[in-house]
């Protein structure tokens, strides 16, 4: 009945606004913390003080200390920096490769598209971690290498979205018009296709960034990403694993990770709703 469906859809709109707002606020807080780390953190993240090792939260150390007496609060704030920067790096690599190949596949169609799709399927058929580990075994551990690897592994998401979105946009008449007017393919792509696939790509970027941050944390946790003494949430969790009886070590980096990923998901969902709602193409 009309009245019933109206009430339901209104409720839905209100909900995503709230979720998206929470997500955006959370994300901003985390980014600000990451950017302003040196200003916000009470101490240097790598300041060692063996005598104060493994202490719980106290006046001097709001979130306690780790195995060599470093301040957990400072480390978690600097860890935001490491994780987010690393994540952005990897996302950028994945975006460049993924979007370029995806748009190529979607625009050209035919054999090019099929071949690229099968290659992408191959990429997706392996769990990201497995692929990342395989690459790390070749390139060796280290944060720089790790991010390169993660970037390669995450290409498939961008490829999939840009290919589908390109095909969608290609259907529109204004593309045909541009081509008929003699517009060279490269220009068609940059002037007409890219602006119109921007929406779904931004949404995908939030997902990819969250995956990148998680994979980086996992690699660091395994000792294959960020190397000690770098303060990354992953390495902090590696410490926590050795002393699971100390809740401040266990919960702080974990909650930080969860909240960051959550913020990205919420923002991404809100973006997706607004992208879909507003209608996609601008000629």
């Amino acid at each position, binding site marked *: 009945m009309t009245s019933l469906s109206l009430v339901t859809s209104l409720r839905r709109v209100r909900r995503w606004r709230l979720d998206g707002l929470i997500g955006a606020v959370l994300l901003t807080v985390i980014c600000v913390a990451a950017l302003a780390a040196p200003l916000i953190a009470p101490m240097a993240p790598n300041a060692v003080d063996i005598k104060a090792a493994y202490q719980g939260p106290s006046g001097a150390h709001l979130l306690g200390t780790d195995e060599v007496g470093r301040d957990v609060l400072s480390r978690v704030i600097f860890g935001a920096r490491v994780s987010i920067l690393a994540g952005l790096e990897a996302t950028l690599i994945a975006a460049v490769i993924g979007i370029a190949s995806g748009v190529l596949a979607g625009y050209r169609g035919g054999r090019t598209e099929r071949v690229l799709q099968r290659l992408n399927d191959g990429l997706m058929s392996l*769990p990201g971690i497995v692929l990342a580990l395989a690459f790390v075994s070749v390139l060796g551990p280290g944060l720089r290498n790790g991010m390169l690897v993660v970037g390669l592994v995450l290409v498939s998401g961008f490829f999939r979205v840009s290919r589908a979105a390109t095909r969608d946009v290609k259907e529109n008449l204004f593309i045909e018009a541009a081509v008929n007017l003699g517009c060279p393919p490269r220009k068609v792509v940059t002037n007409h296709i890219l602006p119109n696939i921007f929406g779904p790509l931004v949404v995908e970027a939030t997902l990819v960034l969250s995956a990148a941050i998680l994979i980086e944390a996992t690699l660091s946790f395994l000792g294959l990403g960020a190397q000690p003494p770098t303060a990354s949430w992953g390495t902090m969790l590696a410490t926590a694993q050795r002393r699971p009886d100390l809740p401040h070590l266990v919960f702080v980096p974990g909650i930080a990770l969860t909240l960051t990923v959550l913020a990205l998901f919420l923002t991404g969902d809100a973006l997706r709703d607004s992208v879909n709602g507003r209608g996609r193409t601008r000629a």
Partner: protein
Amino acid sequence: MILSRAAWSLVILVVATFAVFALLSFSPGDAAERIAGPEASQQAIQQVRDRLHLEDPVLVQYGRWLGDVAHGDLGDSLITRQPVTTMVGNALPKTLSLVFVATAMAIVGAFVAGVVSALRPGSLLDRLIIGVTSLGVAAPSFWIAIVLVSAFAINRSWFPAGGYTTMSDGFGSWLHHLILPAAALGTVTTAELTRQLRGSLQDALARDFTLTARAKGLSTPRVVGKHALKNAAIPVVTVLGLRIAQLLGGAIVVERVFAIRGLGTITIDAVNTRDLPVVLGVVAIFSVMVILTNLLVDLSYSYFNPKLRSQSR
């Protein structure tokens, strides 16, 4: 249709393993030197090279590897000298047990939470479930693993903090050791499946055939559990299929936390020691597992959606 999917899957398997193979063969550092050992003479190293055909072009080496694989030979570990197949064979059941129990827990959990949520939308319980699942999809499984160990194995000794016992040593013990790691591994999947089930169940309940079912005088459990559920299952199965790869990957890290000598631990050790044949073998196995589970998922589609079955009349 299934056959062509299987054929393509094989192609994909070859592509994936070749890519990794090629990458590994271009790796810095000389495999021959490492195998021969730090004391070996140049002659000994060259002998190793010849024996392992390390100077052949990549494609040829790969072809040979592929041929060996077809015979069930994955080469030998550079470190332990054991056949990779043996190592994998010992480790695989543990990883599979873990993934299996995690998947089972996820399906049961999602079923309960999803149905409860869909039946009472907007209620306190529903909102709670939505909130918890939002967090659940965001939490890293290895962190959950540490939290669970901290809460249930260290602070209270309800479950062992690690290790694995085989089924032949007792089903109870096997399960007891697997509950915490499986719970950690399955958290994200449970959350995702719950959300999907809730959504697709609500959709199914809003459709015309649900009204017909009620008009036939069927009870609510039957309307929801039989009529709506079968229609709501497909997107959920799809999500499960997509998650399997993640589950297999996540198992690697969870095994580390719980000291289970499954495929994950073997992989990490191999990566740390640059034991390339093992790495390659593991990649191949993972690929096969993902492909097999995807095939299973595809097959189950035709059970849930009769429109996909081949028309033979």
